[in-house]
């Protein structure tokens, strides 16, 4: 899923300051799972902003709504009937959600309330970790299911570097060395010899190197 964290309230208040009627718009998918922009967080942010406005005797109308997915047009169109009531949308969607809403309503400013972070896994309650960079050419087979791009600080394809000690990464002792994990996993199923070969340079054009990416699937189009 996409992970995100809420921006500091002062930064948010600075961005919405010019507007009087604001829709705080949550998303019930990824950002709900990481407790940043779901229905609950949207309600909390809405009331925090109302309270702050009241304290400073500002006249603003702040209302909330949460879409099932903010990055899919079928859900965004649900705003069609109400959009005219607002002069700005404060979005708790990920960066893709913010832009999808903005695309649909070109005249309405759509302001991000979250910092979108990474493609991650919910490791345990309140702990999310990054483990994929969406490189467009998945190499997990070669590396025993541990991504050296997302999880090795130096993105080594032929690691580990000389700083790997006791299974920890040289840049931060709280971080597992991805290459120790790769070696452990490959040894566990007897495939360590996969690492004898030199892994060739990565084709970054499949990541951002080739400009913004898109997927076209004619079989899915109507």
């Amino acid at each position, binding site marked *: 899923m996409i992970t995100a964290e809420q921006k500091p309230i002062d930064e948010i208040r600075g961005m919405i300051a010019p507007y009087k009627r604001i829709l705080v718009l949550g998303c019930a998918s990824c950002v709900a799972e990481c407790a940043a922009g779901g229905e609950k967080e949207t309600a909390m942010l809405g009331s925090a902003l109302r309270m702050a406005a009241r304290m400073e005797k500002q006249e603003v109308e702040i209302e909330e709504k949460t879409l099932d997915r903010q990055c899919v047009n079928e859900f965004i169109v649900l705003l069609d009937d109400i959009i005219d009531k607002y002069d700005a949308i404060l979005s708790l969607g990920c960066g893709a959600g913010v832009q999808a809403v903005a695309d649909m309503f070109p005249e309405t400013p759509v302001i991000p309330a979250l910092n979108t972070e990474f493609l991650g896994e919910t490791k345990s309650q309140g702990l999310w970790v990054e483990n994929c960079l969406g490189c467009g050419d998945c190499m997990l087979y070669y590396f025993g299911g541990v991504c050296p791009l997302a999880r090795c600080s*130096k*993105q080594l394809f032929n690691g580990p570097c000389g*700083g*790997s000690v006791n299974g920890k990464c040289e840049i931060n002792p709280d971080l597992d060395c991805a290459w120790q994990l790769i*070696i452990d996993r490959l040894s566990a199923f007897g495939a360590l010899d996969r690492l004898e070969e030199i892994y060739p340079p990565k084709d970054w054009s499949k990541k951002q190197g080739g400009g913004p990416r898109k997927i076209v699937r004619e079989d899915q189009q109507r």
Partner: protein
Amino acid sequence: MSHLKQILERGEFAVTAECGPPKGADPEVVLKKGELLRDKVDAVNVTDNQTAIVRMSSLAACSLLERAGLDPVLQMVVRDRNRIALQSDILGASAIGIRNLLCLSGDHQSFGNQPQTVGVFDLDSIQFLQAVRMMRDEGTIIGGDELSAPPDLFIGAAANPFADPLEFRVTRLAKKIKAGADFIQTQCIYNLDRFESWISMAMERGLPEKVYILSGVTPLKSPGMARYMKTRVSGMDIPDEIIERMEGVPKDKQREEGIRICVETILRLKEMPGVKGVHIMAIEWEDAVGEIVERAGLLPRPGI
């Protein structure tokens, strides 16, 4: 032709030393360090924005040393350059007469004075080595385009026998040799036992016959420096006896003790099968190199 390469090919025990470029544009600093090392070592290894701190470029400092008649080793890290810049700098380096190249990943950017930058890491150090060897031996760059003239370089890589996992360290050495390393420079050695077990594992795979291994040493200035390196520099193995030796002498004798440990280490390394030379990294202490080399019985350096 690379002086270092000729020394090694003749079977002499090679001596190289490190030279860190200044945090400024003054050429004299580089030239002065070069003078301290002249006739004491066979080649001078110039660091590339070491510990991710901005300094004069390694390429420029190497050029200054080359013009002064020394044999520089150009260090190049993949942290700061993508494959276009790496390959282009290699052509430039060869064109201005630099004959040795050390391919490294580089210290992570979060350690230095530009922690907000982005690390490039387009290639890793092994892919980089392979690219340089292809440029030199096949005359082609990544993707297959042909060069009008190939670079003339003696190619090196680093190895850390003290990082984990030990068994895989030798596999990685083998990969570096396969990728194209002519010589290997190791991390600073204080734990000779562990170094010996690494070398003997490498011997079992026949690796020292395929590559010249230069063993790294760094003279300690103080027990504080030893403790700092032990606890703060990842992949640095300093046994407690060494720290105790440094602590056991009065303050004004500590540098002497550091030099003595370094000389003793070199004397043992010289006798170790598979070790073809020593690389002295006297960090901001280049004037110690002459004394170390002399006391280790490595002077005069052979001419070519």
